[in-house]
């Protein structure tokens, strides 16, 4: 039971990351490598603010903002300076590494002794029986809020343009809109979410670590694919819901691989095979239209 809760907790945290990557990877068709650095960016901002005594709740908007700025810069490099998409992400990822170190001050910042969104006087006041479930509830609420806001946004005029930019840039041009600006906006929103996810992860694990972003793009893309492939038959579930479920399933795969008591050497291989099984099973379902 506790293990399941652990999977859910981490699944929800990475779901927010995956929702961000869903925008760049699926909607804009943009391989945004900067994610590996914007995830720790949110964590660095969070660690700095929390050690300086700010209210943990303030770290959420602050890291959203930091991520949005970073994403906008990646977009600017790509759209205005005409650097290839993959390269502009790599440039941003490389540069941000130093920025993250500067923000956090050092490569590992523990915040065990400070209040976080999961550990504060309000949570401590809850009845004992409920306390172990508080983090998973908070995380579920956060993931659902992000999902709902994203659903709403994608249904607005601006969100429609965003979706059109990935699918059919010509259409955007005929609507007399600049697809470049829309791309920058999309990258900005995506990285804001990635950074928010890093902020929440930092408070959940109660330390910042410079290398915590390594592999986060791969993890997020895997979650997006698992979610959208496996649940493509269930159209009543929106794409965003599928991504959230995909993230939880991905974490479940890793937990299962760990639980089998295999040699640690084989962990990644077993995770890969489990993922492959899920994707193949998902692929067998009847075809449904690509995405919203």
């Amino acid at each position, binding site marked *: 039971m506790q*293990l399941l809760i652990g999977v859910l907790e981490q699944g929800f945290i990475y779901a927010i990351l995956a929702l961000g990557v869903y925008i760049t990877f699926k909607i804009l068709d943009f391989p945004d490598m900067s994610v590996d650095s914007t995830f720790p960016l949110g964590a660095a901002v969070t660690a700095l603010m929390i050690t300086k005594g700010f209210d943990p709740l303030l770290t959420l908007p602050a890291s959203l903002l930091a991520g949005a700025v970073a994403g906008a810069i990646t977009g600017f490099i790509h759209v205005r300076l005409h650097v290839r998409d993959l390269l502009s992400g790599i440039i941003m990822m490389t540069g941000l590494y130093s920025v993250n170190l500067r923000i956090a001050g050092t*490569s590992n910042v523990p915040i065990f002794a400070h209040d976080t969104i999961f550990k504060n006087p309000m949570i401590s006041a809850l009845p004992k029986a409920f306390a172990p479930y508080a983090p998973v509830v908070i995380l579920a609420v956060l993931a659902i809020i992000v999902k709902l806001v994203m659903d709403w946004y994608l249904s607005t005029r601006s969100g429609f343009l965003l979706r059109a930019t990935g699918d059919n840039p010509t259409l955007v041009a005929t609507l007399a809109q600049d697809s470049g600006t829309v791309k920058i906006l999309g990258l900005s929103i995506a990285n804001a979410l990635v950074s928010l996810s890093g902020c929440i992860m930092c408070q959940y694990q109660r*330390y910042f670590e410079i290398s915590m972003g390594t592999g*986060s793009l791969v993890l997020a893309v895997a979650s997006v694919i698992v979610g959208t492939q496996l649940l493509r038959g269930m159209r009543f579930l929106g794409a965003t819901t599928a991504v959230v479920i995909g993230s939880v399933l991905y974490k479940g795969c890793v937990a*299962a691989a760990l639980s089998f008591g295999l040699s640690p050497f084989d962990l990644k291989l077993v995770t890969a095979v489990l993922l492959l099984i899920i994707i193949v099973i998902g692929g067998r379902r009847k075809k449904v239209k690509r995405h919203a």
Partner: protein
Amino acid sequence: MKRIITVIAAIALIAVSALAFAEGYTIGIGQFAVHGSLDNCRTGFIEGLAEAGIVEGENLTIEYQNAQADMGITQQIAAQFAASNVDLMVGIATPMAQACYNAANGAIPTIFTAVTDPIAAGFVNADGTAAGEVTGTSDALPIEAQLATIRAMLPDAKSIGILYTTSEVNSVSAIAIYKELAPKYGFEIVESGVSTTADIPLALDALLPKVDCMSNLTDNTVVSALALVLDKANAAGKPVFGSEIEQVKLGCIAAEGLDYIALGKQTGLMAAKVLKGEAKASEIPYEIITEPGLYVNNAVLAQFGITLGDDLAARAIAVDAE
């Protein structure tokens, strides 16, 4: 299909938790990465427990997991230990120990080892008291002894090059101490920071011409590429000093360093006290190895034509290359 997967996952979980109900103690050992020093820590730890009468396979079940240096996995391993409600969690190396301490959440005692600075890592308050149900051993380097030995072996050397990874907090704090103590021994420290193993060749090419010798930390990234460091340094005719026995085995000339097996053993004895209920983790102060050992590699000494003075020779432990 999702339901089937859920069912399979549930069965797997039940099977695993059933294992946890074996006789005696169950502990979870999480190790951050696979490398010589950390492996030695674990070996020593298990020996230490055995010395105190807690023997694996008799009255001890060990759940061992390795995070393969993946930060996301450290969290999951720690959550798994908490879920199977182990009697004690052991975190080897700082990030893994932090993940364990966080997942234990005060309910399960946590033992750390191979953590250089337990205060910076958040396990110990600045006044030396435990931050929670956590204690362990530090692998802080005996830097002063190292500088004295380098001075004794290389009387004319002026500068020492140190390669480190900017992401490793242990290395950053070690360099600060090196810089503070170096003038006392007439050395200048020239450091070069890398972020991945891929950066090491270039960093070395830039660093080696500027220094008279190299001193190696316990930096995980640099240690993984030690063979390369030694190759380039030997080609440039600059000796490389190590920081523990494994590095001397690999070809470092000498090291005032730790024996990680001894460190692990010391940690195992502390863990045994906690398991037997003789003391709570928060009541045992963290420990460091006070007497460093001097390890030397005779083949490399001969290669550089260096002979040890009587003082050093008296306590040097010769280590053969593997």
